């Protein structure tokens, strides 16, 4: 996989994105703005489940009226995110913060999946109840925590503190998937 990332980083478009004066900046800006829509509305959904905002609005209304916008925001984030990754594939792939973010994204997806396919199936019984039942509240809290951590780890990707080749504990290099060639023996 590492060599695939290396190959990707040498493709024409990857280099173009990486070296362009404006393309990367615009991509990153789009990613952050879509964050306002996606995370912002997702937070509202979670807060409704916790019974903190929009208590008059039935949960099904929130899901039907607000969730579609989060999906649009999410699509923009995924697209811009893929392009951001593609601009610097090798370094990002070996970045501990990116790896943490990827795992957290999977967990957030799982949380949403479990909520929609199990808890939400009983929504008619608790649509207008404030706050929602425990399992729905748990999903809301998990979502808030996970997305906060995702935003946090996403921001940290830009920093090279734990890049392969740095003098650091072997565990961190292992998490980053550093290959022996990447670890500078003279800096350890």
């Amino acid at each position: 996989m590492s060599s695939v990332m290396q190959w990707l980083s040498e493709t024409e478009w990857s280099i173009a994105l990486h070296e362009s004066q404006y393309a990367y900046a615009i991509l990153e800006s789009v990613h952050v703005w879509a964050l306002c829509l996606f995370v912002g509305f997702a937070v509202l959904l979670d807060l409704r489940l916790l019974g903190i905002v929009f208590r008059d609005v039935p949960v099904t209304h929130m899901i039907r009226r607000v969730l579609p916008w989060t999906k649009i925001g999410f699509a923009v984030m995924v697209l811009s995110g893929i392009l951001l990754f593609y601009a610097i594939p090798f370094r990002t792939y070996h970045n501990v913060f990116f790896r943490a973010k990827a795992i957290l994204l999977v967990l957030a997806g799982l949380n949403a999946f479990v909520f929609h396919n199990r808890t939400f199936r009983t929504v008619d019984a608790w649509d207008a109840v404030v706050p929602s039942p425990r399992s729905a509240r748990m999903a809301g809290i998990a979502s808030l925590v996970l997305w906060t951590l995702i935003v946090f780890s996403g921001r940290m990707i830009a920093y090279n503190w734990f890049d392969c080749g740095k003098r650091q504990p072997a565990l961190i290099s292992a998490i980053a998937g550093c290959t022996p060639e990447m670890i500078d023996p003279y800096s350890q």
Partner: protein
Amino acid sequence: MMLLPLFERLEASAIGEAVRGSLWLFPVVEAFHLMGLAVIGGAILVVDFRLLGLTLRAHPVARLARDMQPWVVGSLVLMVLSGIPLFLSEAIKCYYSFAFWTKMTALIGAVIFTFTLRRVVAGAPDGRFAPAWNRAVAVTSIGLWATVGWGGRWIGFSG
């Protein structure tokens, strides 16, 4: 222009020095700034979308706006509190940054607009204002806050 000496003094402040001297303070503070951005984004956009008739149309906008008020205020406070150390760490760069001045101007405009005209329109009973007014307010709100966001992001790319 008397501002440059002021900005030089601000950059030399204890907080500015602390953030500059630390490897992790800037990113951590900025992460809080980013989380505040996500919350204010949602809180502002949901009411603007409602004014545009894009979401939650069955619910009075005034009710939604009232629910969002503490979150707009709270996230704004968070963003200002986190923004100040970020600014102090690179005040001179901000001084010479077109993006920074654009952001601050737009921020003042956005805050004034949000807590005056928009508050009246979004707080009114449904039907009190013609849809065109609701839409104009929503578009202005989105435009002003988007400019703040644009400026904020591009400070990072300048200098």
